[in-house]
């Protein structure tokens, strides 16, 4: 019986408790960082707020008034925080971006995103262009659709499964939420019904290094008067009783399920991590003065993202105990209506900077190669709920648009551009003042490339994860047939 089945039975019977109940798994958990082996894992990073990814992957500046680069820069100076002169635009292009060409298209990658550039150069980055979920530019609705992977979801239809949950369940394994509140992306389907939720395959690892309940310490032999121990014994005993007596349809059952998972997986994770120190480069993302890290700028602007990176590392270290197949992270703060240059650059650097968020995780996995981590079988998906408009606004930012870029990064990803990076048709639209909110037209819907990704992670899974894929729009039929190389 694997842990998943064990958990299912245990949750039904309330058996997952105390000493003596889990000897096999506790012994397993004493091992060090475990290899992914042949198991493929998805790490999904949702950029909440509608990220302007055209801000960090930009066209080459050109003085040619018929060129894409000319119109892009003429309409984006405020968002980039530069003056509206040709020299300023040229200098910005020259100095702030690493220049790359692909199939005759020249583009720049912001220099603050050094790791992204490295991964591009290594051929590990797929840039999917003109991608979108639905035509709504409302954050909550578009985010819901992105997380649920369900274009039929209406605003406020919260009780539907997430596509990450469906993918994990299709493998018979678990989705792991690394955020404080698990994303709806991780919510599992209720049987074959994707429009209902069953979270028995969802495990929350919001703080991998402290997960668990305070327990009465048998070894310390504390005296009975010690009130913490009294409280711990009473609470633990009481929850055991509740498992047996609380009706199955009680609204409080979800808390008992949390209690079961925290107690069980908390123990396992803590025992595993006792032999797995936090890599200093990762710890330095959210803590100051880490031994061995002398770079004070290692800290992220958003430390919570650093803690998620640690959770991701720890979950990969414990993936065998958790039956982890899908990992979920989030980073907010991308809704840059104003002062975009300042806000978005911080976020971009946190995510893509050299030695920053994803870079630190990637390096840590490589450094741990001696412990048999198989980085080849990890793929990262990075996307927001929608894009932004082609022209910047009066607040030095950009307003909501439809299409956007989405990224897949991994050693088995076939690097390159998928879809037209800078569609020529945008030139007319950006100049047409009758179009008040020109944006990137969505040409490829998420079902298409997310479906291909699902099939790589779990062979043949796209049919159940994205059952409506055949009706989803795609810029060019067959464009994702080689998205991954085995």
């Amino acid at each position, binding site marked *: 019986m694997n842990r998943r089945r064990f958990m299912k039975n245990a949750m039904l019977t*309330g058996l997952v*408790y105390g*000493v*003596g109940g889990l000897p096999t798994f506790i012994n397993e958990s004493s091992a060090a960082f475990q290899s992914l082996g042949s198991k493929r894992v998805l790490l999904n990073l949702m950029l909440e707020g509608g990220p302007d990814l055209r801000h960090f992957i930009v066209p080459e500046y050109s003085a040619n008034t018929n060129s894409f680069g000319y119109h892009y820069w003429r309409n984006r100076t405020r968002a980039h925080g530069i003056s*509206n002169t040709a020299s300023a635009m040229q200098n910005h292009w020259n100095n702030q971006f690493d220049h790359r060409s692909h199939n005759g298209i020249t583009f720049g990658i912001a220099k603050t995103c050094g790791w992204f550039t490295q991964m591009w150069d290594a051929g590990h980055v797929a840039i999917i262009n003109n991608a979108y979920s639905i*035509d*709504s*530019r*409302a*954050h*909550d609705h578009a985010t819901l659709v992105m997380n649920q992977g369900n274009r039929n979801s209406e*605003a406020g239809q919260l009780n539907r499964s997430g596509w990450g949950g469906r993918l994990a369940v299709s493998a018979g394994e678990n989705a792991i939420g690394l955020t*404080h*509140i698990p994303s709806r992306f991780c919510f599992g389907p209720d049987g074959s019904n994707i429009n209902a939720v069953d*979270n028995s395959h969802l495990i929350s690892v*919001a703080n991998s290094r402290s997960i*668990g*309940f*305070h327990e*009465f310490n*048998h070894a310390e*032999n*504390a*005296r*009975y*008067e010690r*009130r*913490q121990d*009294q*409280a711990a*014994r*009473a*609470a*633990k*005993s*009481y*929850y*055991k*009783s*509740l498992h*047996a*007596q609380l009706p199955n349809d009680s*609204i*409080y059952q*979800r*808390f*008992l399920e949390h*209690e079961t998972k*925290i107690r069980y997986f908390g123990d396992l994770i803590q025992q595993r991590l006792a032999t797995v120190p936090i890599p200093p480069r990762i710890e330095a993302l959210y803590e100051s003065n880490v031994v061995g890290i002398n770079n004070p700028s290692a800290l992220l602007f958003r430390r919570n993202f650093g803690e998620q990176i640690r959770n991701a590392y720890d979950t990969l270290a414990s993936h065998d105990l958790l039956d982890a197949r899908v990992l979920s992270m989030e980073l*907010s703060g991308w809704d840059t*209506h*104003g002062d975009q240059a300042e806000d978005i650059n911080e976020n971009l650097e946190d995510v893509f900077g050299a030695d920053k968020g994803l870079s630190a995780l990637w390096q840590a996995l490589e450094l741990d190669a001696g412990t048999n981590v198989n980085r080849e079988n990890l793929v990262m998906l990075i996307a927001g709920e929608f894009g932004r408009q082609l022209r910047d*606004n*009066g*607040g030095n930012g950009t*307003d*909501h648009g439809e299409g956007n870029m989405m990224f897949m990064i991994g050693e088995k990803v076939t690097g390159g551009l998928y879809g037209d990076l800078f569609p020529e048709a945008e030139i007319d639209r950006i100049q047409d003042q009758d*179009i*008040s*909110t020109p944006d990137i037209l969505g040409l490829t819907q998420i079902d298409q490339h997310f479906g291909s990704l699902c099939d790589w992670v779990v062979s043949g899974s796209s049919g159940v994860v994205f059952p409506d894929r055949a009706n989803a729009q795609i810029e060019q039929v067959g464009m994702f047939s080689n998205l991954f190389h085995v």
Partner: protein
Amino acid sequence: MIILVVQRFSQWLTGRIKHVLLLSLMSFIAFQTPVVQAKLNEDDPALSAILSAIHLLLLDDTPGGPVKLGFDSLNSHHYGYNYGQGNYKDGLTLHFDAQSEPVTICFDAVDVQVGELTIELNSLQIDVLTSGHQCLTFQPNETHAGENNLTFIHHRPGERWGIHDILHDYERKHWLSLPSLTENEWNNLAVRKTLQVFAFGGHATDAQIQTWADMPADVAIKEMLNFEPHNLKLSPLPSGEKYPEPASLDGTFWGFRTYLGDLNSNLPIELHAVEEDNYERIGLRVDNYNTQGAWSRMATTRGLNPFRQKIGYWETNYHMAVNLDAAVTHRQLTYYYDTIMNAHEAGLPYKTVIAEAAKSAAVAMQYAHNENRWVQDSINGGYQNGPFICECNEDFAREIHQLFFGILGEQDPLGLSHHEDVTIPETAKALTDMRVDYDDDNERLPEVITFQTEYHHIEQVNVLNRMINGADAAAKIDHIADIAIAHPESLATLPILIVSGLADDDLSVDEQTQLRAAWASMPSKNFLEFVQAYAVSKLFHAPDRVKYFPSIDRFIYIANKLIHDNTEALLDLYDIASTYTPDRSFVAENVEVFRPLHNVFGGQTGVEASDAPVVMENNYNRFVVREYKQARTDCDDCDNGAPWLKDWAKIIPKQAGVYRADDVAQWLWQHFVGDGGKYYGAVERAHLVALMATDRDLNQLYCVQERRIAEGIVPSQSDINHNRTPLELLERDGPNPYRCDDELSAAEIVLLEKGFTTAELQATDMAALIDEMGNRIIDLESVDAHDREEANREIGQGINFILATPFIMAEEAQ
């Protein structure tokens, strides 16, 4: 008996002598008991009997006539025999008019013995009368057309009885088309549920809760939920309150922060704070950093209005959220809070409340449309000499529709793209030249917007397919509000947003339909009336309603249940809002008031909290690891240099003059969980009485008991000589070979972690043990200060147990 004696004595007397004697007796009683008149209708049987006898002898015996009941009108008179007005020695007849729908006649009966009175409807007996609050329900086919007679026939002439507070009304009343609870359904538990959801539990006394339960629901709810800055029924000052000022000073957020930050205010400020230049106190001022701390105190301080704070918190953290992590200043936020709540208090239509919020400096700073200007283009036409353009962002132009009014544009008759490409950019034009310019004189940003026209798009704009006029942005916002509040999407969304945000995480399609109908039925949308009508409706009290508590709601609710007076609230003794303790409550669960988790999309929702295992984990550990916080009993000098002592005797009622552990446990469960005892069973009782009546937990006692049995240990001769009870034998430190707390064996560990079934606890040995614990007296009134302190600490340990259960994480209807 007293009546009979006086009656017989009076038969021996005649005329003037009788009257002189009785008048003397009456004067004597009145002199001896100055409160007699005031207590005339109270239930002191002996005194009542004497007075009744006097009444009987002195007044004539003419029977009282029938009483006509108005419809939907409370008759608060008192009728009966030797009770209230009139002489209804043989009974009372009530006349009432039939209605086309089922009706109820509700009343309170006093001093009625079994079989003393029967009840007839139109001469047919239908029931017997009992004491207490009760309602009779009549179907239309059970009554006659026109006037009907409800008669109470008294079968024991001479004995006292009475009824009062009679209400004739529809059984199934509707308010704003929502079906209201019947009088029978509106009870103590319904009141508690209402307060739990809409007022962070409120601060009302048990007596006040019962008073509301005895009132008609639609009357009670107006006392419970209103927007006055001070609601002294919902938030009374306890007897002997040392810090009563909040009940009379300016009750706005601004006023309260001024009181908190004024060094001359009467406050229980901690001594060390004075030594540190009053750092914490000054931090609570309107300009300073601790806006969360000030608000948390306002929600827990007695003499204010926790319902007002609940709605203020919801409006500013969820519905029309702004964020101190954006550019909003503390001063602007405080003013914003009051702008909304003062508009609510004034009873303004909801469109006006929303418009006032939309015109605030806080919202302008949040979305940065204070920078929006209608100017000549500086890009395509050279420097400021091209065509006029909107130098704007579209952020609030979108969200005023979506978040404030619930309009996504999906029902735009010209399509969603029209909403995106026309309504939103046009709204951005309307929101131009709203200035929040830095005030150099006062060196701060102002809390109000200056609406100017120099850079305003003066012309009308096309918003929601209507032409919007207005000389400046303020006028245009008002016009947009007029249109938006009646927009079909808003009519469909706003009532759901309100109810799901405040009270129900599982609205059915049918319930949503009813709520929309109720909202639509108001020509001018009144938020308070809608909430009041909903709070006494069958929808809110439907068995399948559930509300998961967001972390902040749970913390404030728990604080309100722990706190007894303003010393505890103002000092933040339970570390709800503390800004410096490392394990402070809000931060531990990744929430902060006025820093909503999803920025303008609002704070952590109840569903999110319930979906997050770490929230449950934190709550559990808080009441286990940091048990000492809730069990805190004293401080040496925190109260302005004076000590503070916890005293649960102030609010826990005694039963039969004592604090039995069983009674206290049951009261605490109801006080904190408020479920009417639904989840209070044998297991809960056993754990609670063990923690509060012994210095042990149930499992430790059980372990010792089982080990003694297993080893065949029997009471010693000394135990027998001292009549030691089974519980006392388990509690003995020595000579007791099995204390289950030292060098634990595997068997002992199993016993210490055992979960009990109800059947196990009802087995003879355990049942006797638990009964013995339940019958112990908790020494809350001991003359010994140490014993009192211990008693309070043990109650704190019981509270920790309750708060670690899942029942504190969510609330369900009756």
